């Protein structure tokens, strides 16, 4: 039986969602794109003027921008592979039969790190990693390791942010991969287990193909998350010491909210949006083809 849906009904159901998307997503984006073509600083509005692509030229020739982008890429390059490796390990463990009560508890505890507000995670890190009074250095002291200057040393601060990011987002990766594993048809997995006892072979030839969509989703989401990573490092180190943890989102916030240069910050944001879209398309093309 074919049901006809009137145009009015379609509009009534879709209209509010489209209007909301326009209001909170598309219009602000277009406004930001328009403002990125202007010299638009909140503290000198009288001098506001159209400058074409000057803001983009300023961003692309700014060493601080490239340094922040490089730092963000390094964070991504270190943290995400570790998150995927650890997440896969956790997912495979939870995917095995048995110990159902323990696994339920583990699943629940996996939600906690990513359910914690980013800013709170950063503040916790600041307190826990304090060189003199922090609990981490206290525990290191118990095993004879001297207190480490986590926040005041550029390299240590960067490493601390990487570790904190791994702590917070490994559970997310694990849960996505666990969901991916549940899409493997049981009869195929059982048949494979009759053929081989090698877990590695089953992972490579049976489970991994089903995990590809999950991995692509993880890459896209973690890329977007890393590019907009702000709250945690901001509350933890404020981008310092020096510029050691000034990731791209912190640089943009500094430009827009502290220097009030909205035009320049908008240009930086639009470039980041373009980069995110580009990387997302790249992941889909490359990874879907290879496996």
């Amino acid at each position: 039986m074919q049901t006809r849906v009137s145009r009015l009904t379609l509009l009534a159901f879709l209209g509010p969602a489209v209007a909301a998307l326009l209001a909170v997503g598309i219009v602000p984006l277009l406004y930001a794109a328009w403002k990125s073509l202007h010299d638009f600083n909140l503290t000198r509005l009288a001098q506001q003027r159209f400058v074409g692509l000057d803001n983009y030229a300023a961003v692309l020739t700014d060493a601080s921008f490239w340094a922040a982008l490089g730092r963000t890429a390094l964070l991504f390059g270190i943290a995400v592979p570790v998150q995927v490796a650890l997440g896969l390990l956790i997912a495979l463990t939870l995917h095995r039969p048995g110990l159902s009560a323990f696994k339920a508890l583990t699943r629940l505890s996996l939600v906690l790190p990513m359910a914690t507000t980013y800013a709170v995670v950063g503040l916790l890190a600041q307190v826990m990693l304090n060189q003199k009074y922090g609990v981490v250095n206290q525990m290191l002291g118990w095993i004879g390791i001297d207190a480490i200057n986590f926040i005041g040393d550029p390299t240590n601060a960067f490493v601390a942010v990487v570790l904190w990011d791994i702590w917070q987002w490994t559970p997310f990766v694990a849960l996505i991969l666990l969901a991916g594993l549940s899409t493997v048809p049981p009869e195929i997995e059982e048949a494979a287990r009759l053929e081989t006892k090698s877990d590695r072979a089953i992972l490579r030839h049976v489970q991994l193909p089903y995990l590809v969509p999950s991995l692509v989703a993880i890459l896209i989401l973690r890329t977007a998350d890393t590019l907009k990573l702000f709250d945690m490092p901001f509350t933890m180190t404020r981008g310092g010491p020096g510029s050691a943890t000034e990731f791209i989102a912190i640089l943009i916030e500094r430009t827009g909210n502290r220097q009030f240069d909205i035009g320049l910050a908008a240009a930086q944001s639009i470039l980041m949006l373009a980069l995110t879209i580009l990387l997302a398309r790249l992941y889909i093309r490359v990874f879907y083809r290879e496996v």
Partner: protein
Amino acid sequence: MKTTTQASVLALAAASALTAGPAAAWTLEEAAAPYAGTEIEVLFLDRPGYAAAIEMLPEFEAATGITVNYTTVPYENALGEQVRDFVAGGDLDIALIDLVWIGNFAENGWIVPIETFTSDPALADPDLDMADFFPLVVDAFGSWNGVTYGLPFDNYSGLLFYNRCMLEEAGFTEPPATWQEVMDTYGPALTKDGRYAFALQSKRNETQSADSFARFLWPFGGSFLNAEFRSNLNSPESQAGLQFRQDLMAFMPEGIVAYDHAEVVNALAQGDVAFITEWSAFYSTLKDPETSTIVDCLGVAPEPEGPAGRKPALGGFSLAVASQADEAEQAAAWLFIQWVTSKANAGRYLELGGVPARQSAYADPALAERFTFIPALVESWQEGVPEFRPRFAEWPTITEIVQEYGTRMMLGEVTVEEGARAIGERMEAVLEEAGYYDGRKPLAQ
């Protein structure tokens, strides 16, 4: 500009004196009567001076029928919150102005000169007595380009807070009088057994610019800008001061670039360092047994002198009426500002933990005995530099540059000379774009 402002303060004082006769019957209650029921909005910070004002608020509200709605924000958010509110024509009726925001607020027309209210006999308290404020403080915190906009509120001078017991243990009977003594004598003697002579708050935010970088420019004869508004950071004096800061790090805790106010105050309060240079506002924290273990050992002195004199750090705020407020809100806002900074309330404000900028409040020797920071504060406010940090509208951009390269300098990622040059070049680019070099803007800071 300083002379002009002081002249305007004196003129206001004279005007107040002349009108004292006919306005003798002026009362806050009568002045506020037309504005009863008005609500005014202001941002406050989570600092002792604001807690003191909040405790005093019910008195004002009961006397006037005006409601003061305050929102407490962290310092780092206060500028952004206000700029966005003023640009968007928001609710704020009072501007809370840091020393370095006055040029920005005044040039954008976001605040009203006090003359608007002091010239209105219905609103001007005959006891306003502008000459009673420390002239340096009115000049630095409340005035821009010869016009006074704000009345000083929650003002600080940098002071030397020290652990007298620690100094005595090391054989010192007095705190250091000069920075050279800190480097040559106090530093080596007090840095041992996991404890340090000195902690300089240097975190990459306004603390780096105001409390760390600028603190070692002025006492050594340096400055941010020369008379032509070109960078003066590579002058021999500025370089000497910045290099001195670098060398002094040998006597500071490791990771000092991650220390903000809370960390250095805590380091002194826990007996980990012998002295710090901090704002007068932290006196109440260091004197409170709940937050300090050195209450009986706490000493306060003016900051050490450099080759060019003391020139201590200058920080704090003024309150000004926001021009976006309507007429009734402006009047109500002025009455509140005038009342909370008044001579009559200064003693009580001090008792509650605030630091008033009224000279008369510090004249009582009994108070100086109770609040041991008073003599040092009064001495410091005699010889400060209003442009300790330039107060023009471009400072929010320039401070970010100073913060970045100031910390990189301390970390050894760039040399003092390279860092100063990098700041200078970027600072001049900002000033050029703003129009200081082609005559579009006056060379006011």
